[in-house]
C-alpha cells in the first residue's frame, strides 16, 4: 500500500516545494549569478557602468532569502533535529526528517547569501576595465 507521503496532500505539497526550494535556490541562484555577472563584466567594460551587475546580485539575494524564508515557514514551527529513535514507518520519522530538511534549507540559504555577498566584493572594489 503506497505510503501517505508518496501522494502528498495540497498543504503538504507546498511545504515540500518550500523545503526543496530552500535547498536548491541558493546554489542555483549563485551559479546563475556567476555566469551572468561574468558575461556582464565584458559589457561593463564597454559601457563603463556596473549598475546592472549590482542589480543581478540584488535579485539573486532576494531569491535566496525568499527561499530560505519559505523553508523556515515550512517547518511546523519547530526546527529541532533531535534524533530520537522511532519506528521505521511512523509519523515521527517523517516529522524529524521534515524538520531537518527545513533547517537544512534555511542554513543553506544563509550560506549562499554569504557566498553571493563575497562575489559582490570584486564589483565594488575593482574598476570596470581592469
Amino acid at each position, binding site marked *: *500500500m*503506497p505510503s501517505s507521503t*508518496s501522494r502528498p496532500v495540497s498543504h503538504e505539497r507546498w511545504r515540500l516545494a518550500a523545503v526543496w526550494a530552500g535547498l536548491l535556490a541558493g546554489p542555483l541562484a549563485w551559479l546563475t549569478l556567476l555566469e551572468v555577472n561574468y558575461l556582464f563584466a565584458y559589457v561593463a567594460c564597454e559601457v563603463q557602468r556596473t549598475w546592472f551587475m549590482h542589480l543581478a546580485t540584488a535579485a539573486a539575494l532576494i531569491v535566496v532569502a525568499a527561499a530560505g524564508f519559505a523553508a523556515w515557514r515550512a517547518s511546523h514551527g519547530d526546527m529541532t533535529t533531535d534524533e530520537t529513535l522511532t519506528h*521505521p*514507518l511512523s509519523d515521527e520519522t517523517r516529522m524529524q526528517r521534515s524538520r531537518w530538511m527545513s533547517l537544512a534549507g534555511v542554513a543553506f540559504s544563509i550560506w549562499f547569501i554569504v557566498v553571493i555577498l563575497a562575489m559582490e566584493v570584486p564589483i565594488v572594489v575593482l574598476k570596470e576595465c581592469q
Partner: protein
Amino acid sequence: MTPKAIDVSRLPAYAFGHRSIMWWGGASLMLMEGAMFAMLIVSYIYLKGRSPEWPPGYFAPVLFWGTLNTVVLLASALPNHFAKAAAERLDLRRLQLWMCVALVFGVGFVVIRVFEFRSLNVWWDSNAYGSVVWTLLGFHTLHLVTDVLDSAVLTALLFVGPLQESHFTDASENALYWYFVVITWLPVYAFIYLAPRLA
C-alpha cells in the same frame, strides 16, 4: 526473541512515474544528456561572441526543413502521450497501436533530418561556425536515431513477448525520453536556425 516484522508481500511488483527506479534512471540520463547539450550551446554562444560576423561569410541555414521537423517533432508528442497513458493502464493493445504510430513519426523526422543536414549552407570543416552547427545538429540526431531504435525494439518486444510488468514501466519511461528528445530540440533549433538571423 523474534523481532517484529514489516510485511511487504502485498506490495505491487511494479510502479510508474517517479516511484519507479526506471524513471530515476531516465532522469539521470536526461541530466547528463542535457548537460552535454548545454555545453554545446555554450560553445556556440562563446564562438559567436568571438566572431565579428555571424554566420561568418555564409548564409544562415535554410529555414524550411528545420521548421518542418520542429512541427513533426512536436506532433509526435501526441501518439507518445497516448502510448504513455495506455502503458499506465496496462492496456496492451492500445500501447502497441500508439507505439507504432509514434514510430511512423520517428522515421519521418529522421528522414527530414537528412534534408536538414543538406540545407545547412555550410560544411563542418569550413570554419568554427560550421563545426558547431554540424555538431549540435549531429548530437541531436544521435538522440533521434537512438530514440527511434529503442522505441522500435520495445515495440517489437510488446508484440513478441514474453511480457513483464516492467515493460509497461519501460514504455512509460520511453515516452518521457521521447519528450526529452523533442524538448531539447527547441533550443537547438533556436540556435541553429534563428540565432544567425538575429545578428
